[in-house]
């Protein structure tokens, strides 16, 4: 979603990387692994350096999550900071008393910290559902250290990358944070198409 609707090489520049000790990465060069071959990249908006975007496509194990947080948030000014987290998860993990026939996936649910005062773009996550892994670690950190943060979790029944799940995040484009960052709609569609063709097979 972020790659299709927000990121591009014109407005954003890579400013950092988080490397995990056991990370594997796909690279064409065997002798010279570039920083951008990492699975966890940080981009900064050139026109507004206070806006950072992190694309983390690798799994951060539970015993690495705390250190990941300390390294990333340790180098950030916390005053005035606001965090938005996007994540997906199988709809099979969603617990509800409603019949699954009435459940239309993919769908979004949100969790927010106490300090987050803005309107969320979807219903809040009902009990007894929980969020785990890195998104939970980040949200916990923000809750404890009183940083306004919101997590949008997309429940999907598709394992592979698909446009329907990606577009389930579209309501976020109307949020205060992403409104000004959204790319042209036609450009997004083009990228989306290209993305899926590359990932097919």
């Amino acid at each position, binding site marked *: 979603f972020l790659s299709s609707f927000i990121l591009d090489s014109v407005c954003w520049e890579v400013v950092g990387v988080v490397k995990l000790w056991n990370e594997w990465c796909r690279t064409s060069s065997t002798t010279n692994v570039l920083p951008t071959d990492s699975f966890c990249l940080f981009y900064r908006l050139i026109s507004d350096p206070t806006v950072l975007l992190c694309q983390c496509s690798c799994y951060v194990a*539970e*015993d690495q999550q705390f250190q990941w947080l300390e390294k990333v948030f340790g180098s950030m000014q916390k005053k005035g900071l606001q965090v938005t987290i996007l994540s997906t998860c199988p709809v099979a993990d969603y617990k509800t008393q409603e019949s699954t026939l009435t459940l239309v996936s993919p769908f979004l649910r949100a969790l927010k910290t106490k300090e987050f005062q803005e309107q969320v773009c979807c219903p809040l996550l009902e009990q007894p559902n929980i969020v785990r892994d890195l998104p939970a670690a980040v949200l*916990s950190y923000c809750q404890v250290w009183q940083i306004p943060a919101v997590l949008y979790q997309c429940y999907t029944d598709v394992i592979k990358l698909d446009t329907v799940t990606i577009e389930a995040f579209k309501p976020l484009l109307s949020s205060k944070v992403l409104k000004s960052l959204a790319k042209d709609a036609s450009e997004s569609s083009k990228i989306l198409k290209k993305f899926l063709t590359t990932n097919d097979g």
Partner: protein
Amino acid sequence: MFIPCDRGGGSAAPDFKGFTLLMPAVSVGNVGQLAIDLVISTLDMTKVGYFYTDCLVPMVGNNPYATAEENLMELSINAEVYSLPSKKLVVLQIRSPFIKNKYRPFCETLLSWVKSSKCARVVLLSSSHAYQRDDEQLLGTPLRYLLTPDLEKVVGGCMKELNWKEMERVAAYPGISDTDKVLHIPGGGITKLLFTKSCSEGIQMAVLLKFCSEGDNIPDAFVLVNYLNEWLQLIKKQQFHRSFFTVEDTKFLALTFWQWSPTCPLLISSELAIDIRKP
């Protein structure tokens, strides 16, 4: 470490001097954690802070003790602290399993907090595998207690009056008669480690545990919490909120976030595999 919820506006950090710290072990059937949920919800305790640690698997969800629309959507994390000053009670709830190799660091951090906050004593609610009981333990009550020497001096007599059974020590090498007797709490998670460290560090700690098996452990939680109440007299009548565990209309069984409970209409997450074997 302990981080209070309220850090600004001139209000002082909560003072736990002389309080009893009640906490669960992440153990078989999650009985301790379920019992803690009962205590927090029945006594309507207020959340006063977080126990922020790298020793527990991260997880978040919305308030499991919600009583009204207003507090329904407050975020909860994996380890939180609740307090009831009128009963000098502070409760730590742990909602996720320990990360591998983190039992010892957690025990150290916890005991260090107990000392710095000047808590008078710690009560640990736990459980142990029912199938590991020996012939004698199969008979009679499934409830046991343990006291560190420092607490034994203070309340040892009380336990005798209550006619409670102390957790038996077992032979270090079963079958060989002439061996030392050791404490063995299979399925007890950090119980043995925390208890042993408390003994050596002069902490007043009591362990209250129940023999049980994995399954619908809600009845076990009630038994354990009533056992606790016999001693601490937290509530006058032994009526911990049964309604907390029933599904009414669209209310969910939102007690703890991970209990596998096959008889409950709503299956709560069991994907967080709980490794309760000794570290």
